[in-house]
């Protein structure tokens, strides 16, 4: 039995190393002087610790502003996505109004749409509304997050009908049922959805690139990308620092919502 256990752990550790290594390299690389980054033989751990890249990132660039933009747009978007997805997911699961199957199918179909199809028409649309380079123009198109509706619906289906009957006998109206009863029961799914959607928005590079224009409006990934390639002389140290900074808030967000995330996925993907 012990041999099996050792083997198990070996495989797991090796797998984890392979997967996490680029991340490790990025983080340690952000503290190395530029020339050491790609040295042969590789420096497994920074020999010369330097904070220069971070200083360059924050002192010479509005990196704080970028971070704020990303966090702000992320949180606002997530709030609305949670709200609208919860409402729609609940309705598709429990309200059998005419057309509900067709409409839900529509929602699923949009999940399969590659973003390239809609990119340019969407840009032209937002531009015509005069909302380019504004928070509104950036956020609103992102709020239609079909996956959210899908996830919530799966979840809500498991709420027994008796609960609803009990509530309405007690005199609760529709909204009350939704807010007081349904929402608390789907909190794990909401937690999972919060993480999914936050990540989706944080990393949706193409949309950010196209809509956000001024330096002060850029999100963190966008700002970092703009620093990286200049005149084909890539500033790798800055890139590593930028990549690390762009990853840290996401990791924190994940750790915070981890428990509900996991429960949410579990129950949400059962069919």
């Amino acid at each position: 039995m012990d041999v099996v256990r050792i083997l198990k752990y070996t495989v797991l550790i090796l797998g984890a190393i392979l997967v996490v290594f680029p991340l490790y390299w990025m983080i340690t690389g952000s503290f190395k002087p530029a020339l050491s980054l790609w040295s042969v033989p590789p420096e497994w751990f920074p020999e010369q610790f330097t904070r220069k890249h971070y200083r360059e990132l924050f002192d010479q660039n509005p990196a704080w502003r970028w971070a704020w933009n990303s966090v702000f747009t992320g949180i606002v978007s997530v709030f609305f996505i949670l709200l609208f997805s919860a409402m729609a997911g609940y309705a598709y699961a429990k309200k059998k109004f005419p057309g509900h199957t067709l409409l839900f199918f529509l929602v699923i179909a949009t999940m399969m749409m590659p973003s390239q199809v809609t990119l340019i028409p969407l840009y032209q649309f937002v531009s015509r509304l005069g909302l380019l380079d504004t928070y509104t123009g950036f956020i609103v198109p992102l709020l239609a997050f079909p996956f959210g509706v899908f996830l919530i619906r799966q979840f809500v289906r498991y709420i027994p009908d008796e609960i609803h009957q009990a509530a309405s006998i007690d005199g609760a109206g529709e909204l009350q049922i939704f807010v007081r009863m349904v929402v608390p029961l789907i909190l794990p799914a909401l937690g999972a959805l919060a993480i999914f959607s936050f990540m989706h928005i944080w990393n949706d590079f193409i949309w950010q690139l196209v809509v956000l224009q001024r330096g002060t409006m850029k999100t963190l990934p966008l700002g970092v990308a703009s620093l990286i390639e200049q005149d084909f002389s890539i500033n790798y140290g800055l890139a590593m620092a930028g990549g690390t900074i762009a990853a840290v808030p996401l990791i924190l967000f994940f750790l915070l919502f981890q428990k509900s995330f996991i429960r949410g996925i579990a129950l949400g993907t059962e069919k």
Partner: protein
Amino acid sequence: MGTHNTAWQPRAGTGLPPSLSRKWKSHLWGYFFILPNLLLIILFFLYPLFEAFRLSFTDASIGPSSYIGLDNYVRLFGDETFLRSLKNTLLFAVIIVPVIIVVSFSLAALMQNIGNGAKSLFRILFYVPTICTPVVLTMVWSWMYNTNTGLLNYLTGLIGFQPIEWLGSPSTAIAAMCVVVISWSIGQPLILYLSSMDAIPKEYYEAAQIDGARSFQRFRHITLPMVAHTSLFVIITTTISVFQIFVVIKLLTAGGPFYSTETLVYTIYRTAFGSTQFGLAAAQSIVLFLIIMVVSIVQLRFFKADH
């Protein structure tokens, strides 16, 4: 567990006009709840889709465009680049999706029966790459694969091999690309499998053990079926995302060597922004969309039929 499928309606006698039947009142609430989301989907998915569809019948570029009927689509069928990209995309899907499923499933299976702390740790470790910017991670991978100063050749050099041009030949480039994509894609399926394995009641296993089933048989007859629906979900979502990989290709190989890693999305990107042929690019993206839909539906039917 009670019933789950009766429609939720408000109770009788809530003081509203008697002409509005209970059923319709419930329906109205239904529409109300889906309205914001539906509106957004119509405005920001359907309308642009319709626009893209319309564009695909034009020769739109920058400036005035004219309708050219099915010309764009017809052209695609004879287009060497497009067909090759299609083949490459399918190849990637066929390699990556099964590997992700097998690997994440196996890892999840291995992670049963280890301490909770270790489980949490590994879970986080495998998931974290999923949330990092692909741009910077690809930079690191690019270095690892670099023929002259890269990590891989350094390691193989230690055991006496000559430097290998990892991204230099189609077969190794494709494999290299797959490794990168897989490494940051197994996190999510892993978590899903872990959750669904956790959900299997222990009693099933105990009962089977009492019946004399060996561990492999327990695995085959209990574990596998119970996680089947998770597998279906993973297969469909992973396929959709593999069809859309782009950043990695652009930064690692630029579609090479010799077009071997150029995927549909990369071609679309090039058509739209390199050649600025938006009409053609729209047609390509519509085709991509249709392919994804067909593949997803096929997968749904195929795997559902298995039960």
